[in-house]
């Protein structure tokens, strides 16, 4: 009797079924069911995400997934954002582009984060991928507007050019003029990080005019306020708009022109930019405020009263980025006006000042936690905190997925009781069962790590600074946090014991960063020798670690799992700890 099973479906049927499975996790699961599913799946996977560009080689990726259309790569460790990773560390995209140029000519989309991108890479992209559609560069560096011009000139089907927080060498090459007159497919353009003062407004207007599918347009600071009205009138279908400089001498006709232009944009849901804001011009955006879901005011140096007025006009706000000028009073208004708020980020206006320059304390955070039931994601900079406030916040917001608190002065205790903030953060991890990302600050002992190891079972990313007493703290985290993928630690007294005792855990994680801690060179060598599937890299600008006693702590340590072996592009200040087969664990 011929037994029919699900596994006897023709490949095309399975492939069709798999095409409905988009998430990487699910795709990975599908590929592990059996060998034939692995084979079918790999031929039809279209999108690949590589969280650490050194975890796998480009050749391996292409060999396994020859038909990809989209690739996303991440390079440098997160702490590179704060200047903790020296220049030249790595994260070069060029080798990836070279491999893909040859083997994957139908590639459509490249998304990069914290990578070094050269003009050569951009020119190779422009030349090699005939159907190229989307380039998203997030916190990247190493390229100039010349490279971007090549993309603009050659990629006829380009839909998206998004430069987020990149460090671009702006050669004033009139980037926009390189888009041909026949080019109309632009959907999303973000040039907010370009520094040049020269933007040809007529070129911009013509581009906006002919690209009728444009939905996202984020301009740079060079575009003055009096040009905005013309642009908006030519693109009333915009959903996401970033202004340039939001300042001008107040003239009644230009104000009404601007207000009129904003009101013609019925689809606008997201606003950003607002450099150099002159408050008198802010009401021009009121016509769109009632439908706004996202507002980024992190460059707007306006005071609390203006912020309050603005925020009160936005009842549907889901996402707000703002400076601490908003103060506790402004956050209280936010809490009562914006019941749909899901994400709040409050940045410090004077991060290096010793004394508080604004009246923003834990009270603002408590108010928002109390008033906004849908709040899920918080990034909050402040100068004082209490366990009581943190416990209140935790109880108010059990749905938190991301909680990042930065108390500006390291090791600041609970201002009311002068105790460590262990209990407060402990409440956060205890009540917020779905917490995926947590950043700690303030005075913290090993106890907070015990709480984290015990309760934070869904935690994927943890950032720690100036905290803990001993190796026990690190041990709690490594042994308890089952979902941990990324751990970054600076200036903590964590040393060899916890690291070596939890070596196997490191293979289940993407990466571990430790800087200014107490891990000895000896321990690094041992770890490198015992764990062949980890790259253990010591970063030390003082010189070779073996020029100092083995017991000396290394300056910075970056450990990541990899199937690609040691990397070949290390700068002189990075040393990789070699495998020693005789020492490996079985």
């Amino acid at each position, binding site marked *: 009797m011929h037994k029919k099973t699900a596994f006897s479906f023709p490949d095309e049927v399975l492939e069709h079924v798999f095409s409905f499975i988009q998430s990487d996790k699910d795709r990975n699961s599908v590929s592990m069911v059996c060998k034939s599913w692995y084979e079918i799946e790999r031929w039809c996977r279209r999108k690949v995400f590589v969280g650490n560009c050194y975890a796998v080689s480009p050749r391996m990726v292409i060999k396994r997934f020859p038909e990809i259309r989209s690739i996303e790569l991440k390079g440098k460790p997160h702490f590179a954002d704060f200047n903790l990773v020296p220049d030249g560390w790595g994260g070069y995209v060029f080798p990836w582009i070279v491999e893909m140029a040859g083997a994957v000519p139908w590639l459509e989309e490249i998304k990069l984060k914290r990578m070094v991108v050269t003009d050569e890479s951009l020119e190779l992209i422009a030349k090699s991928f005939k159907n190229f559609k989307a380039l998203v560069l997030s916190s990247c560096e190493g390229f100039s507007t010349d490279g971007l011009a090549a993309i603009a000139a050659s990629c006829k089907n380009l839909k998206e050019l998004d430069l987020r927080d990149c460090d671009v*060498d702006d050669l004033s090459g009139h980037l926009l003029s390189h888009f041909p007159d026949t080019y109309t497919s632009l959907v999303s353009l973000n040039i907010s*990080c370009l520094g040049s003062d020269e933007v040809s407004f007529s070129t911009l207007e013509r581009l906006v005019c002919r690209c009728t599918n444009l939905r996202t347009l984020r301009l740079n600071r060079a575009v003055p306020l009096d040009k905005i009205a013309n642009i908006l009138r030519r693109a009333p279908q915009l959903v996401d708009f970033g202004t340039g400089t939001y*300042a001008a001498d107040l003239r009644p006709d230009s104000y009404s022109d601007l207000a009129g232009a904003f009101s013609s944009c019925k689809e606008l849901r997201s606003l950003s930019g607002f450099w150099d804001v002159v408050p008198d011009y802010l009401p021009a955006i009121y016509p769109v405020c009632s439908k706004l879901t996202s507002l980024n005011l992190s460059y707007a140096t306006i*005071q609390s009263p203006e912020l309050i007025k603005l925020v009160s006009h936005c009842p549907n706000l889901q996402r707000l980025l703002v400076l601490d000028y908003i103060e506790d009073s402004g956050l209280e208004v936010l809490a009562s006006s914006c019941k749909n708020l899901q994400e709040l980020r409050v940045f410090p206006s004077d*991060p290096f000042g010793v004394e508080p320059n604004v*009246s923003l304390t834990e009270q603002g955070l408590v108010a928002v936690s109390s008033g906004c039931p849908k709040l899920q994601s918080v990034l909050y900079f402040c100068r004082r905190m209490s366990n009581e406030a943190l416990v209140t916040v935790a109880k108010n917001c059990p749905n938190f997925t991301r909680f990042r608190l930065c108390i500006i002065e390291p090791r600041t205790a609970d201002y009311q009781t002068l105790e460590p903030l262990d209990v407060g953060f402990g409440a956060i991890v205890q009540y917020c069962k779905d917490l995926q990302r947590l950043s700690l600050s303030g005075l913290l002992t090993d106890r907070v790590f015990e709480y984290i190891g015990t309760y934070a079972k869904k935690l994927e990313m943890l950032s720690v600074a100036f905290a803990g007493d001993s190796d026990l703290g690190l041990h709690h985290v490594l042994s308890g946090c089952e979902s941990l993928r990324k751990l970054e630690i600076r200036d903590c007294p964590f040393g060899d014991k916890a690291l070596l005792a939890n070596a196997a855990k490191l293979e289940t994680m993407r990466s571990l960063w430790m800087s200014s801690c107490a891990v000895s060179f000896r321990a690094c060598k041992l770890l490198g020798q015992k764990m062949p599937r980890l790259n253990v890299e010591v970063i030390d600008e003082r010189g070779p670690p073996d020029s100092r006693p083995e017991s000396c702590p290394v300056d910075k340590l970056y450990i990541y799992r990899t199937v690609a072996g040691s990397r070949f592009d290390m700068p002189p200040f990075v040393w990789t700890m070699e495998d020693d087969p005789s020492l490996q664990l079985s």
Partner: protein
Amino acid sequence: MSPENGKLLPETDAGGLNFKATELTLGLPGESRVTSDGVAKLGSKRGFSETVDLSLGDNKDSNKLGQFQINVPEAAKSPVSKAQVVGWPPVRGYPKRGTKSCKYVKVAVDGAPYLRKVDLEMYNTYQQLLTSLEDMFSCFTIRNYLNDKKLERVNGIEYVPTYEDKDGDWMLVGDVPWHSSNDTYKTFKRKLNEEALYMKHPRN
């Protein structure tokens, strides 16, 4: 109008400011001894805390000074702040994007013995610039063409803000939108507008 026309310095005025203007002090001539919010101002280089004027509450002009960056370059930090720890607090730094080139221009006022320099990058509008110049040259009153306001006149003489553009012509401040005209300024000069004075503002 000859710039060396020293007769433009008033001999007498109501508050005896003329003497104060030539008094030997640590401050620069013409500079007021106190700022607009009453704090005594030293004749020293502006530190970071002064470039971002953060008075709380209702002073709506409090943001006029300076541009804001989330990450401040080392050189601009206030002498009051402690030694910086690298990368703390964890704010994003965009070193190239944040720092713009300084656009210093010379400002000369007819009758003042010294010139001053201002960084045009510090201002977002003409109004801010004029107010700042007025602060710097507080002995002299500046006619505000933009809003046609009558500024408080201390000594009965008004000055007109003009500048020399790249073609060498003397232009009245304010005709061209602020951001598009920045790169044509060379020197500001305050010229006495005697004609306007006599026609519109008869002296007491």
